[in-house]
């Protein structure tokens, strides 16, 4: 399962997440900041609920008619001379991408941040071919230089690193000589990456939303790296999850507005770019060749089930920023490139209960995620549904219940989390709760108590526990 990060089992990961005090502080302050920014941005609109209703309506309609809109998209991409490849699996997607790269005799490939290419471990496939794959998003670039340290947050992937660590990485790997001032670090990355942008053979991007009516893809960034990846290399490959599509430009407006506000509290990010096939005749910059890879990879199994609304997700991370559990355990603990509440819903769907059975329990069911979600995905309901399935699948009183207890105690061991969690007492756990107090059930589990009795944070960093990015996992 390529989206899987590391082999450490869930509670081991939580343990280590809890011990890393820098990361915990970083997570807390990032959460606060992003959450605050989002609240302001939502408030400014005045009628946030109306916007959420509209967004939900758009997502529902689009997913209900997904085959139609994907067909319309395909026709319009082709009309412009672009190529479309439908990939049922990660392997098929990688095979196509490597085939194109081979045809183009590509040596250097520049990428802008994309969750879906992480999901399919595309970099590994291209590197096996001998291509150099360079991440151009500043956060991703830092992680890549640091021996593929995995991302810990959808919007801010290098959240767990401090600037001193970044300076060290730059000086070790690239001979950087200046200070750890963020401006100087960023300027250095800019200079380094400019050369790469200019010499790359292929630019690879994700896609925030495709626009069916024009065969367009859109990219939302602040750094401008997606623009560079799509303006300079001669070949562009865009990889999109099949659900990332809107009918027309008018719906793009709504979802992009919601994404920017919810993700970073901005009205719009610095760059929203709509790209329609290869460059027009007579244009100088822009790709000569355009390939769109549309990925299923387990998504169609979610369609038509009680989890369909999970596919409405626009990857804004608002649910992550309000999650009290994420705050305590950090992104890596989820063992998946999709962390937080949406990760706890999505990872078991895409990767199976076997690998991700604990995740639905990494929640206090406080419903803060559901309230925050700009497209109104009932996240905590979906988590309860997962729990029910897990208990049913693995039999009551055995695995499921054990899990329920451990998951429960993780939430209950922090009074603050517990008070939020008890707001909506989960069905699986209700036997343990009376009058809002825990009557029986297992004692608080190790990770959290360890931290409480363990004021001196462990010297071990998660960099050590997670030395190298798991190459493709145990597929």
């Amino acid at each position, binding site marked *: 399962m390529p989206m899987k990060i590391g082999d450490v089992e869930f509670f081991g990961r939580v343990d280590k997440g809890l011990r890393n005090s820098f990361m915990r502080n970083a997570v807390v302050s990032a959460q606060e900041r992003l959450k605050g920014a989002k609240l302001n941005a939502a408030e400014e609109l005045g009628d946030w609920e109306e916007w959420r209703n509209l967004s939900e309506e758009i997502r529902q309609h689009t997913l209900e008619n997904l085959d139609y809109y994907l067909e319309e998209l395909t026709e319009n991409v082709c009309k412009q001379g672009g190529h479309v490849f439908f990939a049922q699996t990660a392997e098929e997607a990688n095979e196509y991408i490597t085939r194109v790269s081979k045809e183009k005799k590509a040596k250097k490939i520049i990428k802008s941040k994309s969750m879906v290419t992480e999901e399919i471990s595309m970099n590994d496939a291209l590197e096996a071919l001998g291509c150099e794959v360079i991440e151009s998003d500043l956060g991703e670039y*830092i992680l890549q230089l640091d021996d593929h340290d995995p991302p810990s947050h959808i919007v801010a992937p290098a959240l767990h690193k401090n600037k001193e660590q970044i300076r060290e990485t730059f000086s070790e790997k690239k001979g950087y000589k200046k200070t750890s001032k963020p401006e100087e670090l960023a300027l250095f990355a800019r200079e380094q990456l400019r050369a790469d942008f200019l010499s790359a053979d292929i630019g690879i991007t994700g896609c925030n939303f495709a626009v069916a009516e024009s065969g367009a893809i859109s990219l939302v960034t602040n750094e401008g790296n997606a623009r560079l990846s799509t303006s300079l290399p001669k070949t562009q490959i865009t990889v999109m999850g099949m659900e990332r599509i809107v009918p027309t430009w008018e719906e793009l407006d709504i979802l992009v507005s919601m994404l920017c506000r919810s993700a970073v509290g901005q009205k719009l990010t610095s760059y929203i770019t709509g790209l329609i096939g290869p460059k027009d005749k007579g244009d*100088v910059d822009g790709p000569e060749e355009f390939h769109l890879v549309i990925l299923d990879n387990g998504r169609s199994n979610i369609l038509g089930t009680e989890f369909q609304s999970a596919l409405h997700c626009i990857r804004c991370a608002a649910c992550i920023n309000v999650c009290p559990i994420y705050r305590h355990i950090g992104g890596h603990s989820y063992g998946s490139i999709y962390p937080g509440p949406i990760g706890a819903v999505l990872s078991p769907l895409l990767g199976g209960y076997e690998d991700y059975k604990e995740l639905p329990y990494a929640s206090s069911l406080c419903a803060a995620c559901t309230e925050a979600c700009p497209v109104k995905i009932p996240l905590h309901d979906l988590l309860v549904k997962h729990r029910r399935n897990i208990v049913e699948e693995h039999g009551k009183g055995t695995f499921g219940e054990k899990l329920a207890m451990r998951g429960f105690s993780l939430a209950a061991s922090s009074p603050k989390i517990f008070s939020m969690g008890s707001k909506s007492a989960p069905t699986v756990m209700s036997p343990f709760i009376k009058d809002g107090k825990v009557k029986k059930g297992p004692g608080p589990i190790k990770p959290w108590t360890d931290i409480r009795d363990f004021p001196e944070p462990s010297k071990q960093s998660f960099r050590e526990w997670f030395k190298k990015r798991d190459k493709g996992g145990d597929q």
Partner: protein
Amino acid sequence: MKNGAVHNKEQFLNQIAKSLGRERRTTPVARPQWKHQPQWNVLKNATEDELLDVLGTQCDRIHTRVETTTCLELNNMLTTVIEHFDAKSIVSWDDPRFKEYGINDYYENAGRAGVDVHIWDPSIGEKNIIISERADVGITFADITLAESGTVVLFSDNGKGRSVSLLPTNYIAIIPKSTIVPRMTQATHYIHKMEQENGNVPSCINFISGPSNSADIEMNLVVGVHGPITATYIVVTDR
């Protein structure tokens, strides 16, 4: 133009229809009239002047300098702004509006004063990109301007290279006041109409809101990452 190739479509879309528990949708799906449409209420009855105010306030927040001027004074304004950058080289779109607004005269004068002025020229191909990459200043017009988010919308075209607003260290957008609309809603509506009427749209549409930036290092905002380090909007109030 030759149509692109399509692989595995039928199987893939059949699977989706099957999961959704129905036949493939073969007849056009009508986009519903959305029940909620709050987007049209934003700055609904704002006057041009009010929109300009909103733009100015928003630009303060996104590290973007806004200057207002008239067509007559535009070249003086450009001189002032560009002097500030100590620019040795300028790259500009080739767009009829530059002549119409008299900016070509400014370019001529700047050229005489020793500044390298390059007007985007498709006939020299990729040299345009190299020149842009080294330029101190890139100048474009705004095709549409969004007050709420402080955004200039740019449509690509042969003379309107993507690199001009992207590669130079400093970016300047000339904004005719009449291009200012409340928000993205009006712009996407326009693009939607363009698609419906012409059956296509330019190959690249950029919504640019200020300079490039990143908060990837300890959540500290750094202005100027891959794109320009500064952004300046010059609003021409009598156009």
